[in-house]
């Protein structure tokens, strides 16, 4: 094949190349498929072509779905499966995106509670005690707090390791509860158990029911409101402070006079007197959520006349008052007015005058130089341009150690230099006058080359020097950064 040079006729491409890839969505990494990777026309009947067909057929859902999904609706069994999985039924075959779980992964994914794990530690303001040894004695009337506390304290022991107490019975019940709780309405509570309980109270043993109801009242007093009031009022129930407050509130709100029960009877709960006072204050403030918005002024006025038709009167009153003011304004005489003029006495202006303040800038930030008369403006560009001198003077003078054309440098007004330049000029011009015409080009080249060399050498030297003292410069920069103004850059 070396004989064919570049770009000769191609050989007939009658071969097929396949590559082994792991099957998409397969659990087993060894489940591989041959996939064709070239575009030749050559077909191998016994190879990857069949393979792909096999895979599609063996997958029951994808058999028809793969080919028809683009055209019509999905076959029924496919749709059912999709719906079962909770995927939307929009004509797309989501089953092609499913992935099999690896058997190993499935086994690993089941939860095994670890034996070495520690449960969550208690919050800092909670302490745990082991009270398994405390004997709960029979509840006589004498619940002397001090004694019971001693008994309890004596028997409890502090606990270091906190474990979640799992009673086997409890666990069993918990497991069962999820399953069997759905249809057990007989055992569960009805929705109107409160009403039933209230109704049944008057008939049966009052004591026990009262105690039960006590606990529900605090929570469900507002719930009770929603029920019909035509049912019996909870009269046999022991009245509490809250009940009284509620009645007071209701009275104020609705104006009904329900003077049925004014019997104040303390219940089992006795609030401290400060709390009672607070509550009374709160209630007397009458802060309530009404159907309409009320401003505080409304509340103030409401105490006097509790009618909701005040709004119209209000506006009328306001208009009247406006009219009154207007009249007063027109009618009053000027002398009665006392105009108070407030003059701004800017005291600062008395202390400071323009001579004392030079600048609001402080010397800490700025380092003003000594003020001088402006010097002679120094220009960077040479006044004498090369174009001019060639006509006047064919010779360019090089002076100094570095052999630079002094006239083309930025002018420096130094009297000493001027004197030097002139006599030197004279001697140099004498020398060069002879071969001026012939050697201009070479001289120019030589001169320029010389200048270049000098500059090159100078640059090299500078770089060397810079590198030599780099560390020193860095240190100096650090110091300057701290002390001096930030504009100083040494590196």
């Amino acid at each position, binding site marked *: 094949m070396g004989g064919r040079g570049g770009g000769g006729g191609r050989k007939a491409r*009658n*071969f*097929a*190349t*396949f*590559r*082994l890839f792991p099957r998409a969505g397969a659990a087993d*990494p*060894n489940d*591989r498929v*041959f996939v064709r*990777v070239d575009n030749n026309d*050559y077909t*191998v*009947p*016994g*190879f990857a072509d069949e393979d792909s067909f096999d895979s599609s057929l063996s997958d029951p859902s994808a058999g028809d779905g793969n080919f028809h999904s683009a055209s019509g609706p999905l076959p029924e069994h496919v749709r059912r499966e999709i719906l079962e999985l909770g995927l939307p039924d929009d004509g797309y075959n989501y089953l092609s995106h499913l992935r099999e779980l690896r058997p190993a992964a499935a086994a690993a994914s089941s939860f095994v509670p670890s034996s070495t794990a520690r449960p969550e530690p208690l919050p800092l303001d909670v302490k745990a005690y082991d009270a398994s040894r405390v004997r709960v004695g029979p509840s006589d009337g004498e619940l002397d707090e001090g004694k019971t506390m001693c008994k309890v304290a004596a028997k409890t022991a502090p606990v270091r390791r906190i474990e979640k107490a799992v009673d086997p019975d409890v666990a069993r019940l918990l497991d069962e509860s999820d399953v069997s709780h759905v249809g057990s309405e007989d055992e569960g509570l009805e929705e109107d158990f409160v009403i039933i309980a209230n109704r049944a109270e008057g008939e049966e043993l009052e004591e026990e029911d009262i105690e039960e109801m006590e606990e529900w009242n605090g929570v469900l007093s507002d719930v009770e409101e929603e029920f019909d009031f035509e049912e019996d009022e909870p009269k046999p129930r022991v009245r509490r402070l809250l009940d009284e407050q509620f009645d007071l509130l209701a009275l104020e709100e609705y104006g009904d006079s329900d003077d049925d029960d004014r019997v104040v009877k303390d219940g089992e709960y006795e609030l401290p007197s400060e709390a009672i006072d607070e509550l009374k204050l709160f209630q007397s403030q009458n802060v309530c959520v009404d159907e309409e918005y009320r401003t505080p002024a409304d509340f103030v006025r409401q105490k006097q006349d509790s009618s909701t038709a005040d709004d119209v009167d209000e506006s009328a009153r306001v208009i009247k008052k406006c009219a009154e003011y207007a009249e007063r304004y027109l009618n009053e005489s000027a002398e009665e007015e006392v105009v108070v003029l407030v003059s701004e006495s800017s005291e600062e202006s008395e202390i400071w005058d323009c001579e004392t303040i030079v600048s609001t800038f402080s010397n800490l930030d700025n380092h003003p130089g000594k003020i001088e008369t402006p010097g002679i403006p120094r220009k960077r560009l040479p006044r004498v341009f090369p174009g001019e001198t060639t006509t006047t003077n064919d010779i360019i003078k090089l002076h100094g150690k570095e052999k630079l054309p002094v006239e083309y440098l930025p002018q420096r007004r130094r009297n000493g230099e001027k004197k030097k330049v002139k006599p030197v000029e004279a001697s140099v011009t004498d020398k060069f006058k002879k071969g001026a015409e012939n050697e201009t080009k070479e001289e120019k080249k030589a001169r320029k080359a010389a200048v270049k060399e000098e500059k090159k050498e100078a640059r090299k030297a500078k770089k060397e020097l810079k590198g030599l003292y780099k560390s020193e410069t860095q240190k100096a920069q650090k110091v300057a950064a701290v002390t001096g103004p930030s504009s100083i850059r040494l590196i």
Partner: protein
Amino acid sequence: MAAADVAYAPPMKSGKAGFEAGLMDPQHRIRITLSSRSVKNLEKVCGDLVKGAKGKDLKIKGPIRMPTKVLHITTRKSPCGEGTNTWDRFEMRIHKRVIDLISTPDVVKQITSITIEPGVEVEVTISDP
């Protein structure tokens, strides 16, 4: 005759193949290219393939080892430009083996259904004999 051939001289497998050409018609030239970054896995897979093919008495041209391709990446070690100019030299070695067979595609599929080590790429090219 065919049996004697097989027993005596393994290199004479071509004769056997010719004999049985009537049974399995489409004999193709098959080239299996294995490439990997790790030599150990590659050699293992290679050996398994060759063994499998020899077990089925196919004409096989044993693993031809292509020159290893070494891909280099040379980078500065430093994330900034400061410091001594040290360089990292990274390389990736790709090993390639080629196995030529003459057989039917089904047989090849069987052979390649062996457990292949991870990291070994298998490419099969089928052509007319």
